[in-house]
């Protein structure tokens, strides 16, 4: 295991940030710590880095117990949400910093440092900015420099705290892909913290979902999406429709194609793309009305209104490819038949 965390707990006053967390991360993975704000994900990352001390528990890096080691001895690379570049140093000096502060006997020669820094700057495709100051760079550039700086000391693990959190959407999209490729090339075990499930799914090879200081689920993005361990994960990862059987949805679900035998819990979560709709053939039995739809690129999100037995109207969301939707020739207010292909059941 490259990174191991054993029974870590952390309290801030009465608030429990981390509640007995254990986590193993194999060599070479790119792991996302995913969760809503305040779930303890950043605290866990900072404890692994040594920027914060846990109240109890141990941290192992490459098999060595580093719980009592200060951050400077842990050989980690840390990338901060707001970059934390040294604003009084040029880009070059920022990246060279980790090499220059080494004890004299370990320090590389000036020529080697130069070469190494320029290589790293080329790696992040910003060598042409080497004599600029951080204030003169854009957010995306700063974050790439911060990454180059962290990589300069050849860390055994790379820790990134909301690395794209402060960037605008388009830069974010580019950088995600770029980080994934970079990780593929360097293969250094990495953990990044995010509250954006899309980002976690897109970038990470493993996702750890945290909530209220506990791990809800850990697994590959596909696994977590297809087999959410509980209602929280199902809701947090991707879109989902929630049907509560205690509110008389059982009959309705049966007519929608989920027979009583398939009902394995109290609450059904249905992904929008697991809902199929067709133009209603017999008007009397139609039980949903098409309210509106939105274009999401290749997909159309369809907003349906279901009139419940108790008189409450509830919205149900379905998704289908653009062309398929067009072929249905549906208009707002049309009555449609609805079929549920698959549901996750929770208690």
């Amino acid at each position: 295991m490259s990174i191991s965390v054993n029974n870590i707990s952390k309290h801030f006053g009465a608030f429990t940030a981390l509640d007995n967390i254990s986590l193993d991360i194999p060599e070479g993975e790119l792991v996302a710590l995913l969760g809503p704000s305040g779930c303890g994900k950043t605290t866990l990352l900072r404890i692994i880095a040594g920027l914060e001390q846990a109240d109890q528990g141990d941290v192992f890096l490459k098999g060595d117990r580093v719980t009592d080691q200060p951050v400077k001895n842990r050989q980690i690379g840390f990338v901060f949400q707001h970059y934390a570049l040294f604003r009084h140093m040029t880009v070059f000096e920022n990246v060279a910093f980790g090499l220059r502060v080494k004890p004299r006997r370990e320090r590389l020669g000036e020529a080697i440092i130069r070469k190494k820094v320029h290589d790293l700057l080329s790696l992040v495709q910003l060598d042409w900015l080497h004599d600029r100051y951080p204030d003169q760079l854009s957010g995306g550039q700063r974050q790439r420099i911060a990454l180059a700086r962290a990589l300069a000391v050849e860390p055994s693990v790379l820790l990134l705290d909301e690395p794209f959190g402060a960037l605008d959407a388009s830069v974010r999209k580019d950088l995600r892909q770029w980080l994934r490729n970079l990780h593929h090339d360097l293969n250094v075990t990495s953990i990044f913290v995010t509250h954006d499930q899309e980002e976690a799914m897109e970038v990470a090879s493993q996702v750890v979902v945290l909530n209220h200081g506990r791990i809800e689920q850990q697994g590959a993005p596909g696994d977590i999406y297809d087999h959410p361990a509980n209602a929280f994960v199902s809701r947090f990862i991707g879109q989902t429709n929630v049907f509560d059987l205690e509110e008389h949805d059982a009959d309705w679900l049966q007519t929608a194609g989920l027979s009583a035998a398939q009902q394995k819990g109290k609450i059904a979560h249905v992904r929008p793309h697991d809902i199929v709709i067709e133009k209603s053939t017999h008007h009397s039995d139609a039980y949903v009305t098409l309210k509106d739809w939105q274009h999401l690129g290749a997909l159309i999100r369809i907003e349906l209104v279901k009139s419940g037995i108790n008189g409450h109207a509830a919205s149900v969301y379905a998704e289908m490819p653009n062309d398929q939707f067009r072929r249905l020739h549906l208009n707002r207010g049309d009555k449609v038949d609805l079929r549920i292909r698959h549901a996750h059941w929770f208690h």
Partner: protein
Amino acid sequence: MAAISIKSTRHNGLTATVLPTFRQYKKITDMAQSNIMPGFRPAISFTLVYLALIVLIPLSAMLMKTFQLSLDEYWAILTNARVQASFRISFGAALIAAFVAGVFGFIIAWSLVRYNFPGKRLFDALIDLPFALPTAVAGIVLATIYEPRGWIGKLVMDSTGIQIAYKPLGITFALIFIGLPFVVRTIEPVLQEFDTAMEEAAASLGATRLQTFIKVILPNILPATITGVALAFARGVGEYGSVIFIAGNMPYISEIVPLLIITKLEQYDYAGATAIGLTMLLLSFLLLLLINGLQWWVRRRSGQL
């Protein structure tokens, strides 16, 4: 732009009074987007009038007074040994005091920003005391404590044989006291804004605490420290009230320039007093220019310009 200003004034409910007249409206549209901030003319006029009334006219009056002297007379006053000694004492003490206040002020500002301790707010308020205290009061207190028979003065005298009050050392002490708040108050906000993530970044890259301090913290705080030192120095050179009681005022030893000016005035030697005053003004101005230059250089080197 005009449309925007009309809209915003309506929001304030001041439509009738604030709406631009046609002439103004035309002017605004003519200016296009050359100057978005209104009120350039009144603001700059006020600034110039103020500068003229409070700074330039009094200073020119002083200059005029000096012209009553011939160049030879002026030179004779300046090269007078007693005058030169007082210049050395005034500027020397102010410089040393400013640097000492710079170091002490840095440490105090650091403690106030970085640590929590009981009585911190009280301590914080005490820093400003030299600003508010009548300087004469401060001078008398300092003199009483540091004089050879005084509370601390006796201790120092007995243990090291060094006399503080009535010596240049006493002047320096008073100027440190006066200069300290300038340094603390200029460094404090900069330290508060300092992004501590930079320190964490340095540590994660393997830097020791000392390396982090020297390579990361200090360069970011240095420009503010220089400003503080410059302010303390500028104040120290002209300081009169707090120095006069502790200085002893012995010619050639502990006589400061402002005192010499007063002495000349008391002897109705107005031209002589203004000559010294003018020289002092020029020297201070040059030194401040130098410090500003140094600051510009530091900022430039640290990428803040």
